């Protein structure tokens, strides 16, 4: 019974000219967004790989230099795009792509794409995720708003029920048929994306990517299912098609336009952060005067020197086999990096508090559940960005400390000497490994749970509402 209703719904939807036109449009946008996404992925990725290669070569081909010169020469870390970011660019547009790594200070990640465009960027970007998250639900709404109201207005509902079908069966039949029609629109684009991802040599296809893509597809399937069920429920509860359409469009505007912005803005108002300038000043101050304010840098340096003299049983710096300056630099770097990490963690904790408001809103608004889930799976969310920042800082710290210890090994009077050009070739270059799904998992639990909760709740409560709805 459900099957024949589903079949009828599917067939009549396909014969509806409006559906054909609208879904053709959405499909075209999806395919275009996929191709554009790949093109922009390619050019950005090539640019960054090329730049990373260039700076790595430059680093390895340095002439004979003093290691501290090399530490100031430093290097750059470029953030590679994740493969799935061609589907969902997430926050990538608003985050920088490159960070300059040098001794003594942690620089910001610069040159975001958003800074390279005018306020046009604020209207949103045409990505696959954008079409899937905002436009497909609209298509579903247009498809489903009349599911019950039209049958009621034409008296068909009474006829159906007189055949011995229950309202619940009618609802499930419609949901199934309409879901099939939606799948017909979305599946080709996701298929194309998968094909591009797994055939293009620029993507590191592997089980992790496959798993991410699979979950990506499943979450969207659930997301669309929510809209189908929700629209059918609203259609059943509203008196007229017009009222159903207006209600659904109102909910769409509230959930997809107003709430995300409002919660993000509210979060930023509730949990203020400091500027980079303030943070740097605080880090500098605490590194100079000690985290507790009673352990100044100069005293630490003097104590280190005294300890070295004692350790080697000598009475002057000249007789030491190691460079005091190098070891002092290493200790200073270790101390300031520790201070920086504390501040960086506090800053990110504040950002997470700001974002949590939006994450919890996912329980009220499926759009705010699919958005973090989708960008988390695509590797383009805030957590992945922080992961890159931390990887870059870890590399910077490692590099600078290696150089400091090279300097320490040069012994007294190191400033007058240089290390051989070969030395730089032995140092590792920056290679970023994007985290696996296992790492990203904890960040995705809340949005995923929210989506599942919606799915179960809507199927249960919504269908109960439908079965008590009026027939006339």
């Amino acid at each position, binding site marked *: 019974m459900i099957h024949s209703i589903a079949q009828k719904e599917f067939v009549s939807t396909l014969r509806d000219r409006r559906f054909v036109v609208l879904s053709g449009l959405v499909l075209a946008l999806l395919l275009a967004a996929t191709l554009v996404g790949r093109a922009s992925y390619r050019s950005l990725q090539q640019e960054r790989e090329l730049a990373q290669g260039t700076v790595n070569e430059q680093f390895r081909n340095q002439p004979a230099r003093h290691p501290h010169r090399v530490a100031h020469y430093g290097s750059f870390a470029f953030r590679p795009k994740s493969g799935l970011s061609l589907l969902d660019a997430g926050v990538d547009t608003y985050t920088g792509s490159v960070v300059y790594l040098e001794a003594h200070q942690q620089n910001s990640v610069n040159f975001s794409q958003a800074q390279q465009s005018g306020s046009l960027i604020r209207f949103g970007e045409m990505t696959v995720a954008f079409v899937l998250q905002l436009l497909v639900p609209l298509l579903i709404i247009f498809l489903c708003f009349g599911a019950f109201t039209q049958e009621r207005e034409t008296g068909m509902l009474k006829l159906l029920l007189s055949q011995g079908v229950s309202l619940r069966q009618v609802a499930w039949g419609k949901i199934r048929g309409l879901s099939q029609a939606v799948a017909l629109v979305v599946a080709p684009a996701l298929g194309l994306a998968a094909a591009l991802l797994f055939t293009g040599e620029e993507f590191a296809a592997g089980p992790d990517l496959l798993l991410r893509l699979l979950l990506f597809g499943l979450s969207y399937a659930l997301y669309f299912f929510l809209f189908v069920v929700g629209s059918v429920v609203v259609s059943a509860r509203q008196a007229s098609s017009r009222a159903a359409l207006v209600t659904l469009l109102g909910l769409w505007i509230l959930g997809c336009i107003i709430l995300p912005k409002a919660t993000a803005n509210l979060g930023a108002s509730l949990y203020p952060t400091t500027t980079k300038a303030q943070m740097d000043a605080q880090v500098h101050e605490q590194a100079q005067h000690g985290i507790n304010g009673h352990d100044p840098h100069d005293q630490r340096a003097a104590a280190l020197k005294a300890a070295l003299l004692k350790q080697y049983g000598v009475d002057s710096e000249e007789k030491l086999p190691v460079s005091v300056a190098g070891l002092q630099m290493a200790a200073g770097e270790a101390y300031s990096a520790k201070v920086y990490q504390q501040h960086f963690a506090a800053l990110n904790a504040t*950002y997470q508090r700001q*974002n949590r408001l939006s994450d919890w809103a996912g329980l009220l608004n499926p759009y705010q559940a699919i958005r973090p889930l989708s960008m988390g799976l695509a590797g383009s969310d805030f957590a992945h960005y922080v992961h890159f920042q931390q990887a870059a800082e870890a590399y910077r710290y490692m590099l600078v400390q290696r150089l400091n210890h090279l300097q320490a090994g040069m012994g007294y009077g190191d400033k007058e000497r240089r290390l051989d050009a070969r030395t730089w070739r032995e140092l590792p270059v920056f290679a970023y490994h994007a985290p696996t799904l296992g790492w990203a998992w904890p960040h995705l639990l809340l949005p995923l749970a929210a989506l599942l909760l919606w799915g179960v709740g809507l199927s249960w409560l919504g269908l109960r509402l439908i079965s008590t709805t009026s027939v006339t």
Partner: protein
Amino acid sequence: MHTFRILFSAEWHHFRAAKGLVLLCGLLLATGLYGIYYGTTEIERQRQHLATLPELTRRNIAELKEKFPGPADAGDIGYYHSTFAVHHPDSWAALSLGLRDVNPTYVKLRLLGLQNQLYAADNTNPMKTLSGNFDLAFVLVYLFPLLIIALSFNLLSGEREEGVLPLLLAQPVRPAVVVGAKLAFRLVLVLTLALLLSVVGMLWAGVPPDGRVASWLVLTTLYCLFWLGVVLVVAGLQRPSAVNAVSLLGVWLLLVVLVPSLLNLGVAAARPVPQGIALTIQQREEIHAGWDRPKAQTMSRFFALYPQWRDTTTIRERFAWRWYYAFQHLGDLAVARQAAAYAQGLQQRYDLVEKLNLLSPAISAQSSLNALAGTDLPTHLQFQRSAERHHDALRAFYYPFLFRRVAFTHADYAQEPTHTFISAPELTTVQHGLLKLLLSVALVHLLGLGLLCVRPVTPR
């Protein structure tokens, strides 16, 4: 005129009776007030942040005074001393935040090479910048069209579906007057809300009462008129309410969402920006090569540009500050062309969008409001140029100390040049925006009137 008045007041009755619409207007009013509140607090927060910067500079100077208790080498001071070039918001920025949260509002400057300092980003929460600002401009540009759609999607079709239209048209009333009265009522309602919010916003933000007040109000009015024109066109097609709602929302989606995002793609492809990354890499190479080049070569290149600092002494020591700062500056000069090309590329992108935004009045309106508030890309580029000039001024201040080898005393800190930059409105962009909106308004209204003339209103 008489019937117009009757119909107009009837619309008021209908509106009052439709509780949902009254609620919607109330909600939008509340949303607008929140937008104003958010915008003003955001700008206030930015102001507070910027206000802490002089304090940071003071602390930096205090530390230096402690570190160098007597007369010091200006080279040391230039190396350790940092100041800020600050981009102060105009009070209008509170109403249209534009890109003020995407672009940094200050640049920390030392006497070193400028190009690797100029593009430093500030701490931002990318999730928040992705979601965008909930300011008054957003409410006006994004949400007001939706209010207009909600108020008018059943203009005439509602009467037709309720079956009142035959009785209405059996009276000696011109159908155009019926449509006109309905539109006029909605215009008055929407403009009352929009202008009320604008005036409240202006008072709240404390904007100076100059020509921009009128520009803002006219922009808002034209933008609302445009959307009412779209309503007129759709009403002129005389389709059922559901079709109207879908068509109007489709137009909204097209003009507010699709055209901007497609335009963004198109412009990025048509005007590829020379990468800022490349120029910072090259600048680093230039500067660090300075260490390895013979000092005499560096100095002669520098003196060729700045003959006033030429002296006869050759640098024999392993390190000299004037040599160090000379190659820092030469590093900047080596990438000056790329830096200019980068800034120019961004400006060209913006200009191309300005040319093409005739396609969507929503973009015209948004970029005009941003231009009026001085919060868009061109203002940021101006700020960067002003930061560059400040860096020049800093060099001009320190060079006499460095090249004439004058000791830097504690009193000299106070003589250091300071920087202020307050966003200025881009009035030509505003004027062009006004013209473009006027053109769009004329276009849709002519089309709508034409449709009403060609297709007489049928009662069923």
